[in-house]
């Protein structure tokens, strides 16, 4: 069960991404971070803190739950449903440059759902995608704008991002087989 990113590496990576954000957007004017629940939200909050340290400015940060936009809902007539959690976007996304944040980019289906959900909140000026790990195997034409680490994987492997806020420690682990 190899650890592919440890706490230091994750910290340095997020700092680097924060600098890339400032560079590419020439500051943080009109930016807002929206994290995909659950771990994308924690990563978004960490980026907001780093952006504040770099620029002195607050970047509004929200949380998006994409469950009700998933493309695999209601595929069976009965059975368990994914748990719905609250979406909290306490600002208007109209004309903002939205930085969408998730932990792992895999099939691209979560991002598709997140884009649909975001558009229901308004008309952003643009949406840029930030992921901590890109593990490949896309099923939809989705590409990240900021990638923490490109991690070539086998389909049967799973990538687990563990964060202090939810899991008590920071690390990215590659597992053989089993659901992530």
């Amino acid at each position, binding site marked *: 069960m190899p650890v592919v990113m440890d706490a230091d590496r994750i910290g340095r990576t997020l700092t680097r991404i924060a600098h890339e954000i400032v560079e590419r957007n020439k500051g943080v004017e009109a930016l807002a971070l929206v994290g995909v629940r659950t771990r994308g939200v924690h990563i978004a909050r960490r980026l907001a803190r780093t952006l504040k340290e770099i620029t002195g400015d607050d970047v509004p940060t929200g949380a998006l739950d994409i469950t009700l*936009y998933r493309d695999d809902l*209601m595929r069976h007539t009965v059975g368990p449903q994914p748990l*719905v959690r*609250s979406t909290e976007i306490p600002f208007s996304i109209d004309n903002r440059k939205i930085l969408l944040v998730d932990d792992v980019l895999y099939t691209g289906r*979560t991002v598709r759902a997140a884009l649909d959900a975001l558009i229901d909140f308004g008309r952003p000026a643009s949406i840029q995608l930030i992921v901590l790990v890109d593990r490949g195997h896309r099923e939809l034409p989705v590409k990240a704008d900021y990638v923490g680490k490109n991690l070539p994987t086998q389909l049967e492997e799973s990538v687990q991002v563990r964060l202090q806020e939810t899991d008590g420690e920071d690390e990215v682990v590659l597992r053989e087989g089993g659901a992530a």
Partner: protein
Amino acid sequence: MSAPATAITALRSRHLLGIAGMTPEEITLVLDTATAMKEIGSRTVKKVPALRGKTVVNLFFEPSTRTRTSFEIAEKRLSADTLNVAIGTSSVVKGETLVDTALNIEAMQPDMIVLRHSSSGTCHLLSRICKSAIINAGDGTHEHPTQALLDAFTIRERKPTLAGLKVAIVGDLLHSRVLRSNILLLTTMGADVWVCGPPTLIPADIRRFGVTATSRIDEAVEGADVVMMLRIQLERMEGAYFPSLREYFNVFGMTEARLRLAKPDVLIMHPGPMNRGVEIASEVADGPYSVILDQVANGVAVRMAVLYLLAGGADHEETT
């Protein structure tokens, strides 16, 4: 193994026939899901695609404004296709039986039926003969589960937990399906439930449900965290249960003076429709402790949660 990336959960029954049989975990699942659903109502675009392509029939054999409207809004916010069948315009007036009406609707392959009927047990009956998921929107004097769920949701928004709260339910205990569902839910969640009404309107075996029954309203209201008023259901009363509405108000009506016996942060609730000046004084209904309109608002979120949880199942796989 750590927890899966997406927690998946389900209610054990594919119908919502009543609160009876629901576990505290299932009730909590509905309330937690409703918390997430409530946010959708505050958006500019109040709609999510979750129930796209699902057909929901609202089959109401009894008049209802609040519940039917609430279900219909909930269905539409989840993108379901909805159809309202009201008694006045249906074949029931031509003599068709409930079962035949249901089977004919079933033949058009809806996914869910929301049923209100004046006879207790009709939802259980239809759940045995229909393939659709049945949601009880009130059956006779039996149960009204979504009302109890939205009441619990409204309490939970303002109190840390339901467990240990003193909840006084006052009014027509004999004819109330809201009462039965609320007793079942609140006792399951560990609340201390008191019921109060005229002796003629207290069912003989009510204590079997684990509640304290009294006809002294001051005793019921004293120290209460929540006071729920029930409507005097004149349309269901066949005899004279009390001398007059005016006397009922004097003895059991909720007034500001009576309310002072309750906790300072008491919540006043009423499932509607209210009879002002009969079970509740206007200054209480419109007063600072009243959460009656919050109940109505929360009804949509709770019904969205129920519809979502019963509408079907997802693939259980990682979709990052």
